[in-house]
């Protein structure tokens, strides 16, 4: 195999054209992909302690709903978002804070007191008062927040 392939002017220019075209294509393509996926690669904002309200509002043995507002930065918009958190305590000292977001596909669950269950209307899921799945499709218990109590106020860690 020592036959030397002659590259004539025409095929050289042809190849050069493809090479330059490829470079230009990459020059557009790579930044374009970075540009498109950019918002998805942003880190979630830092977590912070969010005040829920007074400890005395929590009823013993029943999940109690706390609503609080947090500021979220999405794109170029800063907006207030409402956070709904159920707090449960059995002894008035240890608290469990549960998100009201269904672990199935993200609908909001609601505490139905006469059934002693959280109910998700989207696909009829039921969760026990501590958040365990009782019925329906959710794959895991309700998500929990880290909670702390300070000077009679409840705080959860979130963002």
């Amino acid at each position, binding site marked *: 195999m020592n036959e030397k392939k002659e590259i004539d002017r025409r095929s050289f220019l042809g190849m050069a054209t493809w090479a330059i075209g490829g470079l230009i294509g990459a020059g*557009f393509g790579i*930044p*374009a992909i*970075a*540009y*498109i*996926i*950019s*918002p998805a*690669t942003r880190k979630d904002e830092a977590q912070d302690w969010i005040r829920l309200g007074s400890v005395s509002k929590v009823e013993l043995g029943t999940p109690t709903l706390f609503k609080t507002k947090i500021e979220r930065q999405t*794109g*170029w*918009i800063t907006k207030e978002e409402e956070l709904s958190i159920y707090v449960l305590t059995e002894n008035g000292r240890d608290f469990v804070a549960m998100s009201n977001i269904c672990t199935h596909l993200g609908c909001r669950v609601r505490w139905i007191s006469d059934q002693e269950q959280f109910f998700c209307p989207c696909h009829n899921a039921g969760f026990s008062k501590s958040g365990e799945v009782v019925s329906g499709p959710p794959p895991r218990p309700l998500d929990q927040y880290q909670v702390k109590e300070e000077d009679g106020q409840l705080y959860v860690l979130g963002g």
Partner: protein
Amino acid sequence: MGSKIADWLDERLGWRSVWEAIFLRKIPKVNWLFTLGSATLFVAVNQAITGILLTLYYVPTPDHAYNSVQYITNEVAAGWLIRGLHHWGASAMVVLTVLHMLRVIFLGTYKYPREITWFTGVFLLIIVIGFGFTGYLLPWDQKAYWATTVGTKIASVTPGIGDWILRVMRGGPELSAVTLARFFGVHVWVLPSALMALSGLHLYLVIKIGISEMPGKDD
């Protein structure tokens, strides 16, 4: 392998004859000035690609336009580059289109049988200017706002129907959300459609008729 696929496709699509007609056609001996049209086309493609990308984040309403542009420029990865390419490409479009036209004028290639190529080219120039005019408003900053205030006001000195033209352009007597929305719509839908249709015809004619020879002293 590659050529087998190419053959298979050619049998069904006939792409080779199209390829040959476009890229392997015979051209007379001409100079670099004859690349100005291709250069314009290249920048037009750049404008289309970067323009489409910009619409992923840009929002054409008074309360979001400016902030979404700032977001693109400062927050989105390569946003400064995409916006910069679109911004500078816009100026390059106008410059290249005009240079291309001057070449055609000086070499007299607007004459028979290329009159239709010429007239589509004239409309394409108007479209390019329309792109520049409508695109200038979209960042919705002070410069954009006042440039469009002045630009639409200039149109209003047209005798007789001037005030009516101003109202149609602004979508009312004042520059407003309506103005921004319609400038955006014209910039991303109306003008691109017109540009594609006319440049399609323009390019078809360039290929169909072929490009002219350099005129000699006694032509």
